[in-house]
């Protein structure tokens, strides 16, 4: 009366199960690693979009870009003036943070409106590694170009968590009549 498996069946069974387990563990591990990287990338991309849209909106509707703005150097500084609103400054500053027992200095972007306190444009998970403004104005138009590079802070410098992105765009101050 045949019952259960023969030895050979069990061996084949185990071999198949092992192969599947190894494959799925490997896959799961990749996913977990990748998720951290993707979270960092998401953070970087969302911050980039937010900063560029904020600067674009405020520059388009400004009246002029004031002297004191810093061009062609990192970090840049943008001073915008308005007809009916107080002037606006977009620049960077350094902040000390502690992450997992490690002290770090990160560069953040901030926006200052008139006499108000500065408002951060980036969170503590993002380092602004490049913020350069160049001037491409002509006789009748005020146009600036912005280069922005953001990286997710990665104190352990784990290669697989690295997330960095950079963008270049331009903005022309809108004509008014």
């Amino acid at each position, binding site marked *: *009366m*045949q*019952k*259960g*498996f023969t030895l050979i*069946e069990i061996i*084949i*069974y185990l071999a*198949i199960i092992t192969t*599947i387990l190894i494959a*799925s563990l490997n*896959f799961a591990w990749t*996913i977990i690693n*990748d998720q951290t990287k*993707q979270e960092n*990338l*998401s953070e970087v*991309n969302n911050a*980039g*979009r937010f900063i*560029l849209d904020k600067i*674009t909106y405020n520059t388009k509707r400004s009246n002029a870009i004031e002297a004191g703005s810093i061009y062609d150097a990192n970090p840049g500084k943008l001073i915008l003036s308005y007809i009916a609103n107080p002037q606006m400054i977009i620049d960077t500053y350094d902040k000390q943070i502690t992450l997992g027992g490690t002290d770090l200095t990160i560069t953040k972007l901030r926006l200052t409106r008139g006499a108000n306190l500065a408002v951060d444009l980036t969170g503590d998970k993002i380092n602004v590694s490049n913020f350069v403004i*160049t*001037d*491409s*104005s*002509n*006789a*009748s*138009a005020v*146009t600036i*170009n912005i280069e922005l590079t953001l990286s997710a802070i990665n104190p352990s410098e784990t290669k697989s968590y690295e997330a960095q*992105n950079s*963008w*270049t*765009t*331009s*903005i*022309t101050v809108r*004509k008014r*009549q």
Partner: protein
Amino acid sequence: MNIQQKNQQGQNLIEIIIAIGLFLIVAAGSMMILVRYLDTFTATAELTQVKYIAQQGFEAVQSISYNSWLSLADGTSGINNSSGEWQLQAEPNLIKEKYTRSIIIAPVQRDGNCDLIESGGTPDPDTKMITVNVNWNSAKGAKTKFFSKLYARWYDPTTCSAAGEAGSLEIDVSNARIDATQKSLIGVMLHNNGTVPITIDKMTLTWTKPGEITYIKINTTNYWHATNGIGTPQGAQPSGTELDIVNFGLDAGQSYDVDAFRFNEKVDSSTFTITATMNDGSSVTEVTTPPFVP
């Protein structure tokens, strides 16, 4: 033998292989979903890049258009700022060694009413359709995005958007009043606020009291008169009739008195609308509140 087969317990190899096969199908399905999910991150990052690459194209064209609208020649091109300001160039741009950006400048047609139409109109020299096309190779193959905007030379129009002669004419009714006979509307001023001479071709008046208009005297001269052959039509005219006056020219920056709009009945406490139609067909309408009786 038969009894033995009926009492068989557990699975045989073929059943296990089928079970594993089923499991693999389910597992592969969920893995594909995960991979697709992760792909969307990459796609989002690429689209964000494309957005700002396209924005740079639009803003550079905006900059060029403010400086020299006429340099927006129809065709496909790229941009560069090697001279310190944005300029068009023939070749498309390659950005980050991945994204190819070309800018397409196309004419825009308008019909006789200045409405935008697809075809059959005349190209408007004051309006251009700017399309930015970005091509790149993603992990999923070649991708392309088109973005379009209409750019208009609204600040210095030459055709449809131009206000015409009427844009320079101001009919000033702030001192309009009825004279002592109560049959004349006086005190209306005409200003040419523009920089070139303009000409009034026709005038139309409406009023809310009985009676007919008999003459219009501007700057001490009759430009329309019901009975002595100046302007058409002849004869006293009712409210709302378009009067083809002798063309009245206004020099740039000058003001002129309308001495009287004369009626054959008392028009005190009436509300007047005065429409001036210019030589180019544009027109201005002004409404007076009932002028006081002296």
